[in-house]
């Protein structure tokens, strides 16, 4: 077997493991749908009347933000899962075996991506049920899928790095919690122009903002323009940094 097939073999064993965890402990998946769904209903029906978005229904504005919320939740779930593997010692067992070095992380990342995509699809369905009317054509839907998957992939590597660096489930949950706040400090729920200037400097330039506006434009059947590339660039950079960070943290644990 070549190195690539070995890596694929090991990663798929690890992925099966993570998917089993998800089915055995469905709370993670349920929460990743339930939390965004509750937020969707709360923002749309609860506060929606007070939020005025020029030219359109608030729910159409809101849905990309809700998708980001779900992604934020997925960070903490994945970070906690990786940290649990460390604290329970099973990573040490894997490290005494002649297997592909990052297979266990790849398993977590791909598992997290699949969980995130299922969660996102369910959240979108709920949104449609309460009045969301996307007008994207098939090509734009493909764009929505592609960007969502890329973002979930990037965020999963960042989560793996957080899980490895903290090493305890509680620490990982706390640190990853920051990612659940990030969508609120972006243009995901309200346009950044409505925020005070000092805040705008951050909110307009953080990755969640271009990702949300790209998704929003695609779902509305419009052209996102250059923001799409900004969004893609952010995702690629985060994926790369997360991957390198995770590998470094993994190796560092070995040098004790």
């Amino acid at each position, binding site marked *: 077997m070549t190195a690539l097939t070995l890596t694929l073999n090991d990663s798929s064993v690890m992925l099966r493991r993570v998917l089993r965890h998800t089915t055995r402990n469905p709370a993670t998946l349920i929460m990743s749908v339930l939390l965004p769904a509750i937020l969707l209903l709360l923002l749309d029906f609860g506060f929606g009347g007070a939020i005025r978005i020029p030219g359109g229904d608030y729910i159409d504005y809101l849905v990309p933000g809700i998708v980001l919320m779900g992604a934020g939740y997925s960070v903490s779930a994945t970070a906690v899962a990786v940290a649990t593997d460390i604290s329970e010692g099973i990573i*040490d*067992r894997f490290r005494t075996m002649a297997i592909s070095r990052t297979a266990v992380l790849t398993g977590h990342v791909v598992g997290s991506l699949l969980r995130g995509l299922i969660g996102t699809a369910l959240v979108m369905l709920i949104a449609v049920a309460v009045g969301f009317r996307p007008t994207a054509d098939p090509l734009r839907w493909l764009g929505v899928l592609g960007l969502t998957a890329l973002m979930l992939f990037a965020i999963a590597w960042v989560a793996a790095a957080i899980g490895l660096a903290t090493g305890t489930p509680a620490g990982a949950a706390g640190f990853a919690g920051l990612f659940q706040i990030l969508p609120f400090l972006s243009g995901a729920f309200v346009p950044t122009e409505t925020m005070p200037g000092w805040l705008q400097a951050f909110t307009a330039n953080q990755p969640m903002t271009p990702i949300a506006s790209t998704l929003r434009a695609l779902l509305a059947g419009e052209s996102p323009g250059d923001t799409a590339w900004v969004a893609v660039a952010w995702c690629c950079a985060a994926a790369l940094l997360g991957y390198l960070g995770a590998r470094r943290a993994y190796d560092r644990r070995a040098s*004790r």
Partner: protein
Amino acid sequence: MSDPPAISVAGLRKAYGEHTVLDGVDLDVAAGSVFCLLGPNGAGKTTMVRIMTTLARADAGQVRVAGHDVAEEPDAVRAAIGVTGQFSAVDKLLTGEENLVMMGGLHRLAGAETRRRTARLLARFDLEDAARRPVATYSGGMVRRLDLAMSLIGEPRVLFLDEPTAGLDPRSRRTMWQVAGDLAAGGVTVFLTTQYLEEADELADRIALLDHGRLVAEGTPDELKRLVSGGHVSLRFPDEASLAAAVSAVGGLPADRDALTLRIPSDGSVASVKTLLGRLDEQAINVKTLSIHTPDLDDVFLALTGRAPDQAPDHGPDHGPDHTSDHGPDQEEAATP
């Protein structure tokens, strides 16, 4: 036998910050033998196992396992070994069977072969009834047995067991001993650590005694026991008068006046105990209870280091069996947020 040793360690050193844990350890383990590393809490046993199994790096010295240097060819070492760590490393959300099948997959066994080995190991470790239950519902001993089964599925040539019988009941302990014996008979080299002299005596071809990161003795069980003369008979008396009379009768040994007991060196044979009791009887000294004490780790330590293992001077308070995990962060790692 002219085979190269399965494990050879030379000049091994490891320190955590200021604290020297291994201070120049040398040892060789012959292929197909059972080697037992004996030592009290904090002696450095786990640290040694972690270095030999590629989990930690040595500061100095050379460690070769199954013919490969652990620092230079870790993957070749990993392909040859099986490891059961001191703290169990199983997946609690999976069932016992799924844990074994996962390990088979990671050893790249064919599906049929994985199923065959899984069934055999489940039977051998008495886990068949629990095979389809999540490990979270297992008792401590069951987890321990599963852990051991998981390290055997790849049929390692060298097996490391870090305190494998800690927390096992006598029956599981015997199963473990049997497994280790069978493996060695089949040519597997077994390196195990323990705190029990009895266990080392039962299993090992050779025993090394680790204390403060140094080997203070090494040899066959018989050689070690010859060094130790810690066997004694312990007598308890109903009152101080009897105790005092006994002390003079046996020739002025120090007695424990509070516990009203007297320790008399003895090899534990019936003849010597008879003689002793006969001597006390002659003087009509009343003995309440008698117990015969065979040498244990305490005696080995007393004999070889001149102090009991728990009186070790400069051990930090942060180790011991109640130390739940040693996977936590340490000084060498970046500060955690």
